[in-house]
């Protein structure tokens, strides 16, 4: 099946920042993203879990498939939001179907 090279960017970030991140992504020309819930995790700022949390706490994972040539713009945009906050960003090479969408 015909596939096309793309990048898969995964950003784990604090939930209160979600809207800011996705707004920045859209501004950077991203055509789509998917938000996954996160149950808990651990990092430099310690361990946490979502159980019993009230309020818009915790973290989410935002996944973004894009054309390779758009990667840099996306990373700049994402980094602007993530920089001062808790979170991690990873980038993987991938293939996608229906390239016209990205």
């Amino acid at each position, binding site marked *: 099946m015909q596939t096309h090279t793309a990048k898969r960017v995964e950003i784990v970030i604090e939930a*209160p920042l979600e809207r800011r991140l996705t707004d920045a992504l859209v501004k950077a020309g991203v055509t789509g993203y998917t938000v996954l819930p996160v149950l808990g995790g651990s990092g430099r700022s310690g361990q946490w*879990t979502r*159980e*019993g949390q009230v*309020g818009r706490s915790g973290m989410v994972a935002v996944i973004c498939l894009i054309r390779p040539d758009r990667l840099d713009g996306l990373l700049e945009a994402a980094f602007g939001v993530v920089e001062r*906050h*808790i979170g991690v960003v990873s980038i993987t090479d991938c293939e996608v179907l229906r390239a016209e969408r990205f």
Partner: protein
Amino acid sequence: MVLDILNLAADNLLSPIILCFVLGLAAALARSDLSVPEAAAKALSIYLLFAIGFKGGASVAAHGLDARLLASVGVGLVLSFGLPFVAFALLRVMTGLSRIDAAAVAAHYGSISIVTFVAATSVLEGRAISSEGYMVAVAAAMEAPAILSGLWLASRGGTGHSEPGLMREILLNGSIVLLLGSFAIGAITGAEGLERISSFIVSPFQGVLCLFLLDMGLVAGRGLREQRGVLGLGAVGFGVLMPLIGATAGLGMGLLVGLSTGGVALMMVLAASASYIAVPAAMRVALPEANPSVYLTLSLGVTFPFNLTLGIPIYVAVAQTVTGGS
């Protein structure tokens, strides 16, 4: 009065509500896997906010719009704006927290904890002390201003760049909207509305509160276990001292406005309590450099349990003595 306080404290400590909190705390500290799902915890808090707001509004509808409402909201705003400055000064003296961390903590103590407020109203009800229904509106009004004070305190150090859209987010925070919204609905539909839904928001209220406090205990205990060592002795001391200072300020303001015994007690509780929902979320957006473990552990692990167990009985007893209320 000391005897009164002790009596009330003992009574309070042995109520199902507090014991549920203690159960949660103990379970979390013992590393039990008991846990309330996030969605259920959020549903419980929506219930509590809705019920407390509605009942407040219905009570205003029943007793008429008191001229003191505006004054009470006014002093609430003053407390919320002002207390962070007191807290900040204390923190700089008592602890080694950085300016940013101190400012973030200070913002929490100017704002309020709605669960502490709810627990206090149920203590008042248990002792048949009535209070002004609009104290709910005062509570809502006190949620946000402290955030501004905290950000201002932080920005004097040059960090707090202004976040676009933050003010809107703070003011349209879900708990403020739900509290004020259900207050309005209660005020509009009045006694008739209350009657229609009282078997949902009145009779089971105490029981729901029990489960909610069980969960609060679990969350607080988990925080204490995971963040032990984050707080020095000075910080823990602050977590107990600051509510007493806040309560004193609340007492003064309550008397100034001429609130009833119950109203004064609730004003003390609001001033004494520290936020752990609205303010932390705002701080993560606007003051990300501040360490969330510090302010969450202080607010939820130290001040909340203190208020719940000892604070509320003290504030109620003091309010009774000072106002001469029954």
